């Protein structure tokens, strides 16, 4: 009785091992099952989804105009103090003072890509870009100025 159980245990064990080895052998011989992407080599054809959060960018049109009114909603929404907005006062043609964006400072090294600033923006002036390769040689390069030099607010955006 003991011997019978012992022998059947041994055969069962060998069978279970062979079953696993069969699966391993299948993947070893079927190259089409390999799904590894050769990352640095496939940079051209690699496409990230549109919603992927890489970094915050400010949208500029061809006339170098943006939609940021300097309302600081994104600055208040940010949990980490990633965004700092410096405003200035523009003169309107009627001679009135108007608050406008001077500098949009973005600290990439503090950003956790939580998307709350994009949600908070009332004029859709900023969005998430798909760039994820953020390595630089000096840490100060990670503090970015998002509005381009000489850019101004698009007309009609309040």
């Amino acid at each position, binding site marked *: 009785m003991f011997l019978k159980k012992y022998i059947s245990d041994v055969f069962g064990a060998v069978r*279970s091992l062979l*079953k696993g080895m069969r699966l391993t052998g299948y993947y070893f011989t079927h190259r089409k099952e390999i799904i590894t992407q050769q990352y640095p080599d496939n940079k051209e054809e690699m496409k*990230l*989804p549109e*919603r992927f959060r890489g970094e915050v960018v400010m949208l500029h049109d061809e006339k170098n105009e943006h939609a940021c009114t300097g309302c600081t909603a994104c600055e208040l929404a940010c*949990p980490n103090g990633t965004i700092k907005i410096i405003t200035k006062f523009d003169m309107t043609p009627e001679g009135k003072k108007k608050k406008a964006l001077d500098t949009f400072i973005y600290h990439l090294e503090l950003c956790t*890509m939580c*998307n*709350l600033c994009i949600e908070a923006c009332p004029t859709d002036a900023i969005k998430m870009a798909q760039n994820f390769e953020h390595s630089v040689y000096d840490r100060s390069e990670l503090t970015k100025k998002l509005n381009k030099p000489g850019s101004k607010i698009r007309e009609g955006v309040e």
Partner: protein
Amino acid sequence: MIQEVGTTEQGELVINLGPQHPSTHGVLHLVITLSGETIKKVEPHLGYIHRSIEKMCESLSYRQFIYVTSRMDYLSSHINNHGCALCVEKGMQIEVPPRAKVIRVLMDELTRLASHQLWWGAMAMDVGALTPFFHAFREREAINDIMEETCGARLTMNYMVPGGVMADLHPDFQKKVKEFIRFFRTKIDEYDELVTGNVIFKSRMEGIGYLSAESAVSYGCTGPTARGSGVSCDIRKLYPYEVYGQLQFEEVTATGGDCFARYMVRMQEMRQSLSIIEQLIDNIPEGEFQAKTKAVLKLPKGEFYSRVETARGEFGVYIISEGGTTPYRIKFRSPGFSNLSALDHMARGYKIGDLVAIMGTLDLVIPDIDR
């Protein structure tokens, strides 16, 4: 003062496992007292990755504090966010649109699948099988792609906002999820073939790390750890939130109480998650994905508690509000901490080689324990 290394007066050997040991899945530090090869005592030392998340949340607004909880249990980050959003909604009495509810449950179950897949690979690697790790990551990649497309991130999604979800589903979502279900139904059978029936794996798991139902309750274990001992503790069944009350699924329990029982509970849970997703994927109601909320959220004065079932067990969020824009105090009840407290009880009397298998079946995520 606890002796950390050397021999005790009784001639027992004290050794350290971790904090930089690969099989502890992070910076867990265990001080083990051994008599020969038999474990006499296991003492976890915590605090290596403590970031004081609870204190941090006190200075963040009710929209902002949700993203921090992704950094606790990073494998079921979406479910953690869900618990926080539920608690804020409870306090504000926000009615969540039906579409958002279904999207949340779908994402929860996908997260649970991804978490269990990674656990399965890591668990098999802990007991010495290297190949399953790569199998698990291949299937997890499919879920990550779905998450990336809809939520915008792969691990720390931050897709939940009080009142719904951040964005609508991606147009390809339904197609991709159906494809994934078909793909994963065949693969989960492969999992069984490769590991579950394997004789070496079975002898490493069966009868190891016994936890009785009584001690599971008294140590506060939840999730698959307690259900492996026959304790019914699934929050989705006991206190249904969102649409879980209307779904057909079983609470998986096993009575063995050993490592193999906990393993089988998680394997069956993967199948249950698949069936939940199948029930919902064709029945996503139309409508808003986010309720209209005020720009600044203020919780009324009082105390609020909500709980969800993560991949590891019960996750509770307890908010005390003084009526302002930030919480007065937040307490998170994380499942990993209570499950870890039972480790000493489970490991006593077993050999040191079994300790890694017991830790594997607890499915520990260290940032969840330390917070």
